[in-house]
């Protein structure tokens, strides 16, 4: 793909893109932070369609286009409630009763009813952890249960914290 960059004094910057298939589009980044996307139909001289995005919207679109939007966004709050079912992320804080224990040792399922269905360590997910798997401080746990069970889990882990809750 060809990218040409031009200054638009007083307005912002212009990026003219031509894909390998010869389709043309132009992205304008305004000094105000707005972005605009124009596309050219065929050989047409003037752009025929425009989308205007705010700064945050443009970043989101960038993440979607870059394929980053669908990767597990640990930093994002992932709080979904499907009927009675609740799925939440928790970070294991240092000093949490869970830190350094296996799932079996913590007996977390028996005590709260909620299950740990994945452990994320250093950005790598370990799905379906077994009873012998250890939880460390700094891990992020994906926990599933009904609302009461997840709430009990939160109360039980004490030193644990909900991620961006």
């Amino acid at each position, binding site marked *: 793909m060809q990218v040409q960059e031009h200054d638009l004094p007083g307005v912002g910057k*212009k990026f003219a893109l031509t894909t390998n298939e010869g389709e043309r589009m132009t992205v304008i980044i305004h000094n105000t932070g707005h972005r605009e996307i124009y596309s050219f139909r065929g050989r047409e*001289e*003037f752009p025929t369609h425009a989308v205007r995005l705010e700064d945050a919207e443009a970043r989101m679109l960038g993440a979607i286009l870059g394929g980053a939007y669908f990767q597990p966004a640990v930093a994002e709050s992932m709080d979904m409630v499907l009927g009675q079912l609740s799925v939440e992320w928790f970070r294991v804080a240092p000093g949490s009763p869970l830190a350094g224990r296996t799932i079996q040792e913590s007996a977390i399922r028996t005590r709260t009813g909620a299950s740990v269905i994945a452990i994320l360590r250093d950005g790598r997910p370990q799905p379906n952890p077994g009873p012998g798997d250890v939880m460390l401080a700094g891990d992020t746990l994906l926990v599933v249960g009904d609302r009461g069970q997840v709430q009990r889990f939160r109360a039980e882990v004490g030193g644990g914290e909900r991620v961006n809750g």
Partner: protein
Amino acid sequence: MDHMVWEVGLALALVAGAALLSWKLKFSTAPFLIVAGMLVGPHAPHVGMLDLRFVESAPIIAFMGRLGVLFLLFYLGLEFSVGRLIRSGRSIAVGGSIYIGINFTLGLLYPALLGWPLRETLVAAGITTISSSAIVAKVLVDLRRTANPETEMILGIIMFEDVFLAVYLSIVSGLVLSESTSVGGVALSAGMALGFMLGVLAVGRMAVPWLNRALRIRSDEVLLLVVAAALLLVAGAGETIHVAEAIGALLTGLVLAETDHRERIERMIVPFRDFFGAMFFFGFGLEIDPFALGGAVWITLGAVILTLIGNFAAGMLAGRSAGLSPTSSANVGLTVVSRGEFSIVVASLGAAGGLMQVLQPFAALYVLVLAVLGPLLTRQSHAISRALFRAAGAVRRKPAGES
């Protein structure tokens, strides 16, 4: 004297009302503010507390307007970067030279043919040559034309005009503000203005590393005060040697634009530019007696027609020389006809120098017409150019058929 705050409040209410109206109508504010100013003033009625003559507050409104010019030009200088100019390079130089060559020549010829003296001619040429950067940029964004092929050419021409304005203002201000009438005296004052400009720029360039350190001030409040003090001191210093204070402001902006603190200063200064700039346009209108406009109507119409022709021709030439299509080239010419803030700045120089009275109503009418007509022409540029090309094609075919 006791009603000063009330009077300024009334003025601000008019300013805010005019700005609100222009915003609702999606026009630039300057012409509306000028009209608001013209409608009131010494000839306006007063009923009790509702005194719209602004007799007591006229000096303070005029002073706020003066500050407005300083902030407008300071901001222009900040926005402007020498590096950017060099990068934009040839296309700007060619298009800009064509534009200035045609329109500045017309701008000088017209008042000369009217028999105006030299200083008036120079000021009038400045009024008619310089497009409104603010209106052009706003219209391009509003009409979603920023991605069009001709937009770089348009903004390049505008930037070239800004450079021209800076140099022109400094030379003409020397001529207009000096009292000397001899050729030698006039040349001396123009030379002094140019020398002041180059001197400040040279010293400023060398001082950039020092300024980078000195302006590393964490408190916004303190930085604002330091910058405002520098702005008024440099502008005032220029004035003492008959260089328009606007030039001093522009130079301060140009120097600070090269520092690391440009964006922060720009952000801080925008509210001041907007506030005092609005007072400048209002105050400019306030000075004009609407009943005196009649004497300037025909002069203005002639100038408007010349501007339309000159700008369109320059757009076609510049566009075609850069390889743009005829339609795109026509867009260039029809977009750059908007006139606004800078024409009024040049005209206020005429008032400061005590030149012919007709310059102010002329500038006001001229800007009013082109600030409204410009965006309309830009909006309809495709239809207009299609009609023009069809007419041109018909003319060209006719002689061919006859021969």
